[in-house]
């Protein structure tokens, strides 16, 4: 990175709102999900009853986490119709719109790892190592295999994602310690370690949304000044290069893209925008002074 501070271009050229827009909207979405689950136990207003694993929206619509559902299948249980409907509804949503949209817009662990990532950048921590991003893809079948061999929802014994939401809604116990461990892991050991390398739930949603519609496109990539701000901000920086620097489609098609929109925010040249996956048009000759 040059001496130019991160985000300076975007702030100077687009102003504060456009430099933080998607981040703010994303925090708002995460807060809405949290509020939906916590309004009931805290204020008696039941919006989402239950937790991320399975819930009832407004006392009517069943929703269920498809990853937990698949674990239950692997463990040898055939879930009842209501869980099946709930998992199908949620799976269909993420399948169509965007798989890892869950990670960026709904997951309660995301603010924790985002904070760790931000702090790591601010403190200039460069230590740690960079394990393969394929680890989570291998951990996913390992979890299902463990579920099958033990006949239990094995990953749910440790899953911090469902665990944190459940803890907030029903009582934390030691869940706070687990979340703290993930924070420290991301801060000191592996950059973007949990979400980017370990979490099999994220890997599951990534696979689920392989052909999802909502995507980021680097349509104005010819305006790129190589300031690297998008790579700095992105939780999955490897997904940007093919779209930004490649010769092919400018659409980020990698299913590990969480569609968080942070690259859209931080780019001073407005290279990126949110669009659908078929929008492959390129704005040529847009290099501005």
């Amino acid at each position, binding site marked *: 990175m040059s001496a130019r501070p991160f985000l300076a271009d975007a702030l100077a050229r687009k102003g504060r709102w456009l430099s933080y827009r998607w981040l703010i909207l994303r925090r708002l979405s995460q807060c809405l999900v949290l509020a939906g689950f916590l309004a009931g136990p805290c204020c008696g207003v039941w919006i989402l009853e239950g937790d991320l*694993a399975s819930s009832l929206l407004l006392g009517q619509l069943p929703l269920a986490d498809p990853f937990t559902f698949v674990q239950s299948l692997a463990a040898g249980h055939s*879930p009842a119709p209501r*869980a099946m409907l709930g998992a199908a509804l949620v799976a269909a949503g993420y399948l169509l719109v965007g798989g890892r949209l869950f990670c960026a817009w709904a997951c309660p662990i995301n603010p924790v790892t985002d904070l760790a990532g931000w702090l790591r950048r601010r403190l200039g921590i460069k230590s740690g190592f960079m394990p*393969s991003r394929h*680890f989570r893809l291998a951990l996913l079948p390992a979890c299902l295999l463990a579920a099958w061999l033990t006949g239990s929802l094995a990953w749910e014994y440790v899953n911090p994602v469902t665990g944190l939401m459940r803890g907030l809604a029903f009582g934390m116990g030691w869940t706070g310690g687990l979340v703290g461990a993930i924070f420290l892991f991301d801060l000191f050991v592996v950059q973007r370690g949990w979400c980017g390398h370990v979490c099999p739930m994220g890997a599951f949603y990534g696979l689920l949304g392989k052909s999802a519609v909502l995507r980021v496109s680097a349509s104005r990539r010819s305006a790129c000044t190589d300031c690297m701000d998008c790579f700095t901000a992105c939780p999955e920086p490897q997904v940007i290069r093919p779209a930004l620097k490649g010769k092919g489609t400018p659409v980020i098609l990698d299913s590990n893209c969480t569609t968080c929109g942070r690259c859209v925010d931080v780019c001073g040249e407005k290279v990126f925008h949110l669009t659908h996956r078929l929008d492959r048009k390129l704005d040529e000759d847009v290099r501005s002074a």
Partner: protein
Amino acid sequence: MDDSGKHGGTSRSFLDAGRRKFLLQGAGSACAAGVAGLGLMAHVQRARALPSQALRPPGALPEADFDAACVRCGLCVRACPFTTLNLAPAGGGIPVGTPYFEARSVPCEMCTDIPCKAACPTGALAPGLDDIAQARMGVAVLADPERCLSLQGMRCDACFQACPLKGKAITMERLHKPGGMTVFIPSVHAACTGCGKCEHDCVPQVAVIRVMPAAQVRGELERGRRRSEAALGMPPADSPAVSAPPRPKTR
């Protein structure tokens, strides 16, 4: 554990550096995931045991099936009109996130519409349970008879009075003690649902009558008898209590 073997059998000369790196990384990931999977299984085996004071909600599948079926969503806890059910917090010695109750704190009130079972989206609380008297959350056991006030000759029948299936699940049986004293011993019968009202109301500081998981007390007998009772069409809870002849029971 997964596809760690995929790097084998390929001649190195055919592989450029990038591809070799990719395959090695894949194999490394697979091995690491395998180790993580084994660790996870070891953790599950350790953490899945249910302590005997933790009882499952009515209609819960046998513990091994329950562990595969319950997604830890807490909808049963929300549906419970009392403060009976809780989701186990992490690190509390009860499988994390699963619903349970402790009879000594808050027993099951045996709602006739079984709202917890109705709320369960996965079938971990068996949808087939329609009559709460058929629930088998556990079975009451006179765990430490010497401390039972009634057996000491005092006029206590708190457990008998607390029982929602009074005269069916618990009866007070006459017992002639050696030495001529006649006392009453609380006796638990097959109709016991394991609601825990008796344990809750038991007078001594530490409950003498306690609800234990049926599998621990009766083992496979429980399921076997229920099957035979169902075959005979005679559910135990509906059968009137047979008062036993005043015959001394000695141990």
